């Protein structure tokens, strides 16, 4: 009986451990599904970044162990994903359409658009999602610069407001460096 009980406990603990290690980040409230981007993968320039919680937390620990540094901005993050495509005449319309479809999808949800830029050859949107404590738990950036690049970026996890600009600078994410945050929870660019 004791062996059976012990086996059940071990099995339950093991299940919890496996589930904890393979937590589905797509279920996180700060996650954004950009949809199918494979049609842009034939662009002459493509970059994909996919850094998950295990790597982010391991890097963040460096900051805890030593002097606070840029790694501290990674603390609390669960995912950094980015898709960057070179823009040319063959894909610009589809990329703009994708940016608009993501904007429609996020509008009217818990996501707040804090930056919207439209120029002749440029489009950019920055969205954040807040939890009940007014903490940013998700960040999304879509941007297009004709003749240059289009970027789709999603950062999932608790994002330190004071370091959001630093995060943008360090990862070279467009349109984040100028974001300031007020204590009343309103953000501006």
């Amino acid at each position, binding site marked *: 009986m004791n062996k059976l009980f012990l086996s059940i406990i071990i099995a339950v603990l093991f299940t919890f451990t496996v589930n904890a*290690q393979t937590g589905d980040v797509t279920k996180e409230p700060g996650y954004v599904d950009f949809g199918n981007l494979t049609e842009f*993968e*034939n662009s*002459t*320039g*493509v*970059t*994909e*970044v*996919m*850094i*998950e919680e*295990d*790597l982010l937390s*391991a*890097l963040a*620990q*460096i900051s805890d162990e030593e002097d606070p*540094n*840029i*790694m501290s901005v990674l603390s609390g993050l669960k995912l950094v994903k*980015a898709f*960057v495509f*070179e823009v040319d005449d063959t894909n610009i319309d589809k990329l703009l359409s994708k940016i608009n479809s993501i904007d429609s999808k996020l509008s009217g949800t818990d996501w707040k658009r804090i930056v919207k830029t439209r120029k002749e050859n440029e489009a950019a949107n920055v969205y954040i999602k807040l939890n009940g404590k007014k903490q940013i738990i998700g960040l999304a950036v879509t941007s297009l610069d004709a003749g240059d*690049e289009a*970027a789709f*970026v999603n950062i999932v996890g608790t994002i330190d407001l004071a370091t959001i600009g630093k995060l943008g600078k*360090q*990862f*070279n*994410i*467009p349109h984040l460096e100028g974001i300031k945050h007020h204590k009343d929870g309103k953000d501006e660019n």
Partner: protein
Amino acid sequence: MKIKYFIISALLFLTGCIGVNRQFSEVKDKILGKFGNDFKTEFQFSVGSTLINISSLVVGLEGSHEYIDNMMREISSVQVGVYNRIKGSNNRADFSLLQTIDEEMSGNGLKYIVRTINNDEMTAVYVNEDPGEVLHKMFVISLNDDELVIVEVNGDLRQVIAYAIEEQNFQIKM
């Protein structure tokens, strides 16, 4: 004569500068297979912690790269393979090729963190899928019109990746 062999053996073991290991060869064979074996080996070698520490000592003597010195001390081994493209081969860098390489790497317990294609150049960085080992192994695969380069780095890689982010900027934009 025996002394000669002894010295050579000692140098190889002490510096760790010996041929690549079996796992590296397996990964290399699978990747080259994806390119239709259109490459011939230019050179491949492995550098162990002893030689890395000697290099680290040299860097340390210069006195201006303490961070790099510390970073190198955390690396236990580096394996490098450079393979030249055979003339007339048709396999060029494209995203579908990169995805098939990802599948092979995934079969070896590795996941990509960055993959990029820029014209005819392709680069991908892989780390261990096991969360507990995520920063203990890193593969870099780079392909251009002339050659394929595969690099495996083992050890505590936190400082290496932190350095890449902190000092060199981890560029999301191309």
